[in-house]
């Protein structure tokens, strides 16, 4: 098998579908993953991200006319997991309880008929790579390890084989917060230093944003949006993405007209302007999202003219440490959240109190035009 050209994606899903009975867990998705990339599948439970991963691993097969899964250019629909160049790390580690740490790590090497003499050395190197001291841990049994240690063994066991792709199924789910953050960084570093493609499944959007080169946000078997963390966060395409990642305020309205390069939208809460966007049509319905941190608060009479502004009453001021969230009740009773940076309430407090009249304002460029889900 000739080496494929280096610019070819290492993984390709072409119109892949997978049904369980009547339910389509994965619905006609097409994704390309690049070599060496840290690629995340992100979404709530039941969105199909784990099924997608298992299709890649080979534990599930696509429906009969459900598209093709390619690894390094080759169609692998029919290939068993042990015939694919993958490694996998599971949420509950799946360390073989009856084998010691070193036997666990050596397992794959034995299966691939690596020379006996080479194995101990590679095991030691793999354990060092995941920061487990071989001297201390090699002979331990899994029930003598903590959750974090077991996860490292699972990682070492998969990586020692230098697979082309490493699949990770919510591997940090059962680990406590502080250790989780450490391991997120370690995983990112391993990805970069080893050059192995990581395909990572998670429901934690913060985690995905931290680690990934690109993210596929999934919802109900479909890919809602695929892009870099910045693209996903700053330009959410649908209301689902805008809601699932971070926080958003939503405004609906009818497209009234175009004035130069800005469209005017008239909605029940007020009017606002949006920069030209191919998706807007005159007379059509529009929905936009604005993130709380892109908004600011002004006294209604002091609203800057070039910004969008909606007037309301302050319902709540919440102290969150890094930020101050101000919840403003707008015209029809809808709430809008504004996130203000906390510059020290004891030195420079925000001048807003419950009951004040205020205008939430944001630049038109910060409007995210949303598509249908």
């Amino acid at each position, binding site marked *: 098998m000739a080496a494929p050209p280096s610019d070819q994606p290492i993984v390709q899903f072409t119109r892949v579908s997978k049904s369980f009975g009547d339910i389509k867990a994965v619905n006609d998705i097409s994704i390309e993953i690049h070599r060496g990339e840290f690629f995340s599948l992100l979404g709530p439970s039941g969105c199909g991200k784990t099924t997608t991963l298992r299709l890649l*691993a*080979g*534990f599930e097969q696509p429906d009969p006319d459900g598209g093709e899964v390619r690894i390094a250019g080759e169609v692998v629909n029919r290939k*068993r*997991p*042990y015939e694919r160049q*993958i*490694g*996998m790390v*599971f949420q*509950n*580690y*799946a*360390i*073989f*309880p*009856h084998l010691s740490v070193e036997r666990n790590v050596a*397992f*794959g090497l034995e*299966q*691939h008929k690596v020379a006996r003499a080479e194995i101990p050395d590679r095991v030691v190197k793999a354990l060092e790579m995941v920061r487990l001291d071989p001297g201390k841990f090699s002979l331990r049994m*899994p*029930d003598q390890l903590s*959750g974090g240690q*077991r996860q490292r063994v*699972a990682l070492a*066991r*998969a990586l020692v*084989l230098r697979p082309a792709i490493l*699949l990770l199924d919510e591997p940090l789910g059962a680990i406590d917060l502080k250790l989780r953050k450490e391991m997120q960084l370690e995983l990112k570093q391993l990805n970069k230093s080893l050059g192995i493609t990581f395909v990572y499944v998670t429901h934690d959007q913060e985690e995905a944003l931290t680690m990934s080169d690109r993210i596929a946000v999934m919802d109900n078997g479909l890919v809602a949006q695929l892009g870099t963390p910045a693209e996903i966060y700053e330009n959410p395409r649908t209301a689902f993405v805008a809601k699932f990642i971070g926080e958003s305020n939503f405004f609906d309205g009818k497209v009234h007209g175009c004035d130069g390069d800005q469209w005017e939208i008239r909605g029940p809460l007020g009017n606002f302007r949006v920069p030209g966007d191919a998706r807007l049509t005159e007379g059509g319905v529009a929905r936009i999202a604005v993130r709380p941190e892109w908004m600011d608060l002004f006294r209604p009479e002091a609203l800057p003219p070039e910004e969008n502004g909606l007037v309301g009453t302050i319902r709540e001021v919440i102290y969150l440490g890094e930020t101050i969230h101000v919840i403003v009740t707008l015209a029809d009773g809808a709430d809008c959240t504004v996130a203000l940076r906390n510059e020290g309430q004891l030195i420079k407090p925000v001048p807003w109190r419950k009951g004040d009249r205020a205008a939430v304002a944001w630049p038109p460029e910060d409007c995210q035009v949303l598509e249908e889900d």
Partner: protein
Amino acid sequence: MKLPRWLVGFSFLVYLFLHLPLIVLVVFSFNDSKYGVSWVGFTWDWYRRLLEREDILNGLKASMIVGVTATVVSAVFGTLIALAVARHRFRGRTALEAFLYVPLVTPEIVVGISLLILFVLLGLPLGIGTITIAHIAFCISFVVVVVLARLQGMDQNLEEAAMTLGADEITTFWKITVPLLWPGIISGALLAFTMSFDDFVITSFVSGTGSSTLPIVVYGMVRKNIEPSINAISTIILIATSLLIYLADRLGQDRPLKA
């Protein structure tokens, strides 16, 4: 929340009720007196006499032959069934699962006489052979229950992990599934052996006249009210089966299977 005194006391009495008869039985197997229940002195006599009794020795031999054979066969059959039920999808699976539990609730009397009828109908001579056949039948369900529980408690990710590391289905089965299942299989086998060794009712129907298994011999001794030798053989049976059950229990709980 502390437990009320009367509750603990009551429970203690129940425990006494459960164990006292057996303790008394064991103690008096060492009593140096043929009749009566007054303690005379310590002796190994009754145990020695057991060794002289041909019927006991033959009965023991028969019980061992039947027990070991039934255990091995039912362990194999039962494990295979458990594997099929736990890992495969097939029509009639629920019906089969239910069917597997029926032997456990069926009164021994019913099982015994129905087998007697069958054997007579088939013209099979009643003896060790028919006893073994019967024992295999009821032991299978015990093995299935134990092994199935263990299989269902086993993390399927373990087998999947092995496959991502390059092991095909057969290798995964031998290197991962079987070693992890093994304590369950042994546990089920020990249980089956104990059930077979102790069985009286079913055996009594399918063994016909002539020499038979140990429980049949003991029953005869009880009926004829034989001297404290009964206590002696009972004690031995008690200790032997207790040991087996203890082992089966320890093995059944061995090692956590989920991380």
